[in-house]
């Protein structure tokens, strides 16, 4: 039976980009359905009734929600190619730990970095940079977080780098000066087809942020 894979997407979403990278790594053919988040489709509401959020992967009619959850699912089902998680349970736990860290300490702050102002923005920016530095420390001198090969932690982090330019302009700082190794690592990841095809150009994200600022009156 041929697999039918559909991704409910929103192009600027870093969470959705994770899924696209995973699908590309595994060479999976899929259909993209772009969602309008201010007018969610009945399909999205049906497939993710609890959160009504993208990304949602629909595999042969069955929905899987939450980006990392989707990535773990993809890795388990299409296990024959490009494993994303290490096979050793301890190494796996470390990868899950850092993916979780990225969710809690990087992705959760992103919106506030560009959206907030004044003292609040300064505080969020400081925390965001500190957390990036923690990740930089974890990367060390490795090519990727996974070691020699691109893996789960790299996949979890790289999408938000498409937002870095916007964060830098809005919050007035430079990732290059603060975390040069992260910038270097991001460039290395972008050399991979699966990543390059899944991330929009930072300028496009910035145009999107400007539009949001206009809508929110910021």
């Amino acid at each position, binding site marked *: 039976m041929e697999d039918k894979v559909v991704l409910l997407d929103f192009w600027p979403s870093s969470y959705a980009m994770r899924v696209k990278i995973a699908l590309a790594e595994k060479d999976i053919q899929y259909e993209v359905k772009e969602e309008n988040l201010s007018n969610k489709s009945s399909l999205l509401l049906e497939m993710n009734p*609890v959160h009504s959020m993208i990304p949602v992967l629909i*595999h042969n009619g*069955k929905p*899987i*929600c*939450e980006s990392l*959850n*989707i990535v*773990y*699912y993809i890795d*388990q*089902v299409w296990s024959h190619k490009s494993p994303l998680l290490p096979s050793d*349970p*301890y190494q*796996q*736990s*470390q990868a*899950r*730990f850092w993916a*979780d*860290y990225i969710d809690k300490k990087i992705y959760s702050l992103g919106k506030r970095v560009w959206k907030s102002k004044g003292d609040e923005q300064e505080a969020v920016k400081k925390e965001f940079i500190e957390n990036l530095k*923690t990740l930089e420390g974890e990367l060390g001198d490795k090519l990727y977080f996974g070691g020699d090969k691109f893996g789960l932690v790299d996949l979890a982090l790289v999408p938000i780098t498409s937002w870095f330019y916007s964060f830098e302009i809005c919050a007035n700082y430079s990732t290059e000066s603060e975390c040069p190794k992260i910038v270097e690592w991001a460039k290395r990841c972008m050399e991979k087809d699966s990543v390059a095809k899944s991330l929009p150009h930072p300028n496009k994200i910035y145009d999107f942020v400007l539009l949001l600022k206009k809508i929110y009156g910021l």
Partner: protein
Amino acid sequence: MGEEVKLLGFWASPYSQRVIWALKLKGVEYEYIEEDISNKSELLLQYNPVHKKIPVLVHGGKPICESLVILEYIEETWPQTPLLPKDPYERALARFWMQFAVEKAPAFGSFFTSTGGGEKGEKAAKEVVEVFKILEEQLTLGNTKFFGGETINMVDISHGWLPHWFECIEQLVGLKLLDPKTLPRLHTWAQDFKQLPIIKESLPDYDRLLIHMKSVREKMMISTK
């Protein structure tokens, strides 16, 4: 797997308890090390330099942090008494519901520091009831005793703080939300979960927990003013 297993925990922490329950269900022998979280040990800071929090599982000298990450590790390492479905789709569903417990924690936090009344209190209570309704629906759809079926799994473990800790919160806030009339299945689930021998024998003493949580609540309410 003959390597030593240690757990750095805190008696009142539901996150610590999750790990204890999983280890006990799988019959894994471990050494428990009680941490004083107001005066963190060198050992904790060494094993969890990133978050400096319990629980930390140490297996053969190697630390694993964050309760849900620890649960996944326990499942991989000790496959007896499976706590996650094998089927990838069912597994993804289970993980979704585990994550749900994490995502909704702030709603419970708001309720914890509310006084039950007023605009803030009412909003917090409403959010918690919404979470309960979603869980009630899940139990109704599944039509089984526990989220895991006839026996508990990691989804039950992830929500396992509700039967005991949330009771304390209801008592402190002065508002009962886990109502058997409007949430019959969830209420029954909570009672059934608490009565399981492995859970019952591990739970901290209720009165002691109440005193501890009262003190935590007071500190949190001062700091959020």
